[in-house]
């Protein structure tokens, strides 16, 4: 059953990216163009997501265990270190260059856009490189 949940959660997430237009790099770049022609929409995507997820997260984690798994499994890493800052800065630079972050990039495979597919290939190569030099943090 948890396999089905993974698929369904992915689908809901993907539809959310389309409706919010985060799937379109132009929309994202409009948000990042704060000192030019600013499109504040993306902040409403985050607000919408957090309004739903934050209170429910705090309720759900009080449960003994998830419905289809033995235990809750997420990082409890609290360290604020150079890796966090440098990694986030590198990500921000790549994000600002094209307007694609991992979720929208992967969803845009559906549109068979050659530009986004090249971006994704490079992104996966980046994942692999970090694994190779095992500088890897566990996902948040």
């Amino acid at each position: 059953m948890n396999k089905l949940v993974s698929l369904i959660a992915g689908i809901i997430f993907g539809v959310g990216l389309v409706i919010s237009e985060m799937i379109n790099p132009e929309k994202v770049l409009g948000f990042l163009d704060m000192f030019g022609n600013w499109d504040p929409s993306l902040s409403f995507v985050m607000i919408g997501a957090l309004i739903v997820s934050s209170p429910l997260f705090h309720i759900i984690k009080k449960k003994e265990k998830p419905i289809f798994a033995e235990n809750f499994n997420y990082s409890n890493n609290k360290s604020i270190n150079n890796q966090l800052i440098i990694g986030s800065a590198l990500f921000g630079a790549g994000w600002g260059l094209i307007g694609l972050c991992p979720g929208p990039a992967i969803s845009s495979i559906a549109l068979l856009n050659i530009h986004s597919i090249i971006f994704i290939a490079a992104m996966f190569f980046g994942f692999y490189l970090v694994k190779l030099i095992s500088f890897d943090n566990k996902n948040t």
Partner: protein
Amino acid sequence: MNIVNFTPVTATLGGILIGLAVVVFFLFNGRLVGISGIAANALTEKNNRFDNILFLLGLVIGPILYSLFTKNEINITISNSFISLIFAGLLVGIGTRISGGCTSGHGISGIGRFSLRSIVATITFMIVGILTVLIKNFL
């Protein structure tokens, strides 16, 4: 600063769906959505590989179902050169792995549970993203 193309209603609706996906994944599977982590682990880790691949497959199916049901065409515009796409893809891939999360992992799942680490990460990538666009506009 000029405000342009502002679509608060669809942005909030889409955001609510994204939040719902995070809640479903957490309630049933006990995991927090972080797409850079899910994608990287699908590539490099055996643990939960099939779950991760199915989530990614869902991300791709979502837009297809949306188009089928609403008959709306999804248009995206990317006009960058192949070199800059490769460069940016590498930055995103490497950066999100070093920092342990992206817009979803730090920006939504992390901030949602009030993780200071994720708040710092999100502020950092937002500021650098904004600066990158600012610099691009000057070039």
